[in-house]
């Protein structure tokens, strides 16, 4: 077995048993990155030297009997997390030269628990995108390909495309990611791996470059549900530096993975049955529900009546917050500064931001500025906030009847890099099943459940009550066991 094929849990066991050292494990991943990254483009910064030094330090700690929960595990970090002394770009030219002198709380937590960082991974610019094609550092290629068209290069999903592709291609045991409207779950589903967006407030946002503050939430992607559970436990926790972080104990999520689903009531929202959705996805959904019933769960049809407004609501709230959050990229204090030829301050702003932001980011800044403008605020932003409340209430109502909700993760499998690029609205539809969890602040997990006719992975999504990730993990793990998903992508280390 190639060292990069370990699950995160498997690697922890192998390290504990002395079968492999962190240095060997890390080196194997770095070698794989060296071979495959030129094609996949998952990593924008490879921290080879630091990673090996960190791995050796971890091995030394282990010799001294100091073993953290993630001791020696090589991980990839989405380039939205600020890492002390390591470039952090958010996938944007405007931050292309930015090296933060501080560490995000989530990555600091991972380091505290013994993790080794392999590098920073690619993403849609400022996490705005569903295909990882908006990155200033080039698109990421999905390691999977269609059986009947193996040469078509597919997107890994986004915005955490680099995280998902790196984990799927065995270029990391797991990765950090963030999810504002589906940016963890959609790429996880496209790349045949698991990923969870925890409850809003579960992970600190301190040190994560902000996209839409009321929606952004960090979470892990990994190849198994349990691996996600292990990572999330380290990433999560109250942080006094984030006023929206929840002061609640962090449960043992991995333990919850073995709970089973007997007696759980699983909601099936009728509004998630979309016109024109591929029959395979509908079939997989039914299959997933059947698996859960076979394990002793009860499935209940529920209604989330405001679902159809979720996407438009999301595409008002998120750009509104983004238009404000991205105002700080002005060329004055850090990042790109285009001063050449600038006649005054306003000219400096315009030149810097014109050169620094890509088309999708500019589009969202404009949308966000528009919906907050005098005369439009009530019709757009305020209305969207009201609808957001109604969407939350839909879920509150549902939780009286069910313990978790299961839906498809995405309305399609991974698409080609040249597809869906012409019309932004078509691209936005990727988030149709995932944005509701962000708007309501609920945990949502994507778990690989099968393949489509082309041999591409498809995922199911489990949504749970706020701060009840444990039930989400229990249901996700049950689907994972039943699906017994063993398919692997063509592009992967050790292949």
């Amino acid at each position, binding site marked *: 077995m190639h060292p990069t094929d370990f699950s995160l849990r498997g690697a922890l066991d192998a390290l504990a048993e002395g079968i492999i050292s962190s240095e060997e494990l890390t080196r194997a991943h770095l070698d794989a990155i060296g071979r495959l990254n030129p094609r996949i483009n998952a990593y924008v910064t490879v921290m080879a030297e630091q990673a090996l030094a960190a791995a050796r330090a971890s091995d030394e700690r282990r010799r001294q009997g100091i073993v953290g929960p993630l001791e020696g595990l090589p991980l990839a970090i989405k380039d939205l997390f600020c890492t002390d002394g390591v470039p952090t770009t958010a996938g944007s030219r405007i931050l292309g030269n930015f090296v933060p002198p501080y560490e995000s709380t989530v990555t600091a937590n991972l380091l505290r628990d013994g993790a080794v960082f392999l590098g920073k991974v690619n993403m849609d610019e400022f996490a705005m995108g569903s295909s990882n094609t908006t990155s200033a550092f080039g698109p990421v290629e999905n390691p999977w390909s269609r059986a009947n068209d193996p040469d078509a290069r597919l997107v890994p999903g986004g915005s955490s495309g680099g995280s998902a592709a790196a984990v799927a291609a065995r270029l990391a045991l797991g990765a950090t990611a963030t999810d504002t409207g589906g940016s963890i779950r959609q790429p996880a589903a496209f790349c045949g791996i698991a990923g969870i967006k925890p409850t809003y407030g579960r992970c600190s946002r301190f040190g994560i*470059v902000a996209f839409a503050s009321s929606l952004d939430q960090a979470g892990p992607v990994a190849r198994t549900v349990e691996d996600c559970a292990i990572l999330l436990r380290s990433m999560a926790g109250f942080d006094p530096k984030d*006023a929206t972080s929840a002061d609640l104990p962090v449960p043992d999520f991995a333990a919850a993975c073995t709970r089973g689903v007997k007696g759980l009531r699983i909601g099936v929202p009728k509004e998630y049955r979309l016109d024109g959705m591929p029959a395979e996805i509908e079939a997989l959904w039914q299959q997933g529900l059947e698996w859960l019933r076979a394990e002793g769960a009860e499935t209940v049809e529920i209604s989330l009546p405001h679902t159809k407004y979720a996407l438009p609501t999301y595409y008002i709230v998120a750009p509104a917050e983004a238009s404000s959050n991205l105002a700080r990229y002005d060329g004055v204090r850090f990042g790109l500064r285009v001063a050449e030829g600038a006649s005054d301050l306003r000219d400096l702003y315009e030149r810097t931001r014109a050169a620094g932001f890509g088309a999708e980011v500019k589009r969202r800044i404009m949308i966000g500025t528009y919906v*907050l403008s005098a005369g439009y605020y009530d019709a757009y932003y305020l209305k969207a906030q009201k609808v957001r409340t109604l969407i939350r209430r839909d879920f509150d109502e549902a939780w009286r009847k069910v313990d978790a909700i299961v839906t498809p993760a995405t309305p399609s499998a991974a698409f080609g890099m040249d597809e869906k690029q012409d019309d932004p609205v078509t691209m936005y539809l990727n988030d149709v099943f995932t944005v509701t969890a962000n708007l309501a602040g609920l945990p949502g997990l994507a778990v690989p459940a099968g393949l489509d006719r082309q041999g591409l992975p498809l995922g199911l999504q489990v949504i749970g009550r706020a701060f009840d990730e444990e039930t989400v993990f229990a249901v996700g793990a049950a689907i994972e066991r039943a699906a017994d998903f063993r398919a692997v992508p063509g592009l992967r280390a050790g292949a």
Partner: protein
Amino acid sequence: MSTYRIEGRTGPWELVIGLEVHAQVISNAKLFSGAATAFGAEPNTQVSFIDAGFPGMLPVINRECVAQAVRTGLGLNAQVNLWSRFDRKNYFYADLPQGYQISQYAHPIVGKGAVEIELPDGATKTIGITRLHLEQDAGKSLHDQHPTKSFIDLNRSGVALMEIVSEPDMRSPEEAGAYLTKLRQIMRYLGTCDGNMDEGSLRADVNVSVRRPGEGYRTRCEVKNVNSIRFVMQAVEAEARRQIEVWEEGGTVEQETRLFDTGRGVTRSMRSKEEAHDYRYFPEPDLPPLVLDAAWVEALRAALPELPDARRARYVRDYGLSPYDAQVLTAEKATAAYYETVAKGRDPKLAANWVMGDLFAALNRTRRTIEDPPVKAEHLGALLDLMKDGTLSGKLAKEVFEAMVDTGKSPGAIVEERGLRQVTDSGAIERAVDTVLAANADKVAEYKAGKDKLFGFFVGQVMKAMQGKGNPALVNQVLKTKLG
């Protein structure tokens, strides 16, 4: 009712004035970061990554700043809102690192209140407070450091401000001045704002309109960032006169933001309504609503110091001072504290006379402040005691006081050193009287012949002979006896 009017060509005009005051909160750390707030530090030395708007930084509310806003609200007799919320006010400027200011737009921490102002003629008037909200200050742009570049100092970026908005209740420059004076006084008593207008910790935006007496409101203009009480009064008048001229020439006053040119004493346009920013306010998603515990607010209320109005009333009631003296002595918390130390267990009116007379004169002369006076309050009290027990005459006391100003020593020490103790020994006085009468036999004869006025001459001669130390009452008494 104010009868202040500006007489125009076409008749009298009434002024309508409201103030938006920005008061820097006294706190060790900034509103949303742990960076220090001391004035006068080297540029960009009190800046956290939060204040500089770095990626991934998040605001966390400073509890002490919230307490200061609540104290101020309570001091303004205002409603404290147990639920308030922060909003973002979006605009681009080089000294605004985040590209937005975190403020409270829709739901301020303090609602309606009122302050009573005192006018020079002794009348009082109530000015309504519309609201008080918390917000962060911007940094400072320095445009005079380089021929083509502006420098940015972010020390002030993120410092907590209270914006206190009044109702348009003022009707004259004097009322505007009295209101700002009172606001400053209350905050200084509370210890919530130092009120240093020179250092920019208190600034006012002045809203002015004019109207015919009895008419509804006309269009107002806002004069931004006026930084002294005197300038506020001047700006009100200058702006009112400008508007009157516009109206009287058949024009229309346009709503706009103006600046007061202190050199020329006129206001000039900064930006028109059309150029006004669209601030795109929306709820600050990085901060949950600010929810206060009612018991916490009550604890702050219970711990409030005595405020100027209450203290002034007490001086009139308990000390028997005139309203004017009471107002002078309570204008500054430090003055009142000084006075109370002097007055404690002594004649309060005598204490007031000494503080307002000799001490204030000494402060002026020595350019010292009441916080750092040349004569300690305890020493001035001791001086009053020496007068009361007869050790010092009034005249000697003045002399001792001057020595206290010069040396900082206690009156007891000065009396001992200089032998200024008043002589009450009747034997010594009799000897001095005898000597004087013997040396002025002719004057004694004239006195006895009916020239009563010479009595003062004898007193003067005796005091002179005793180097001023004779007890005046005793000298009088002995003289009267000897002269028959």
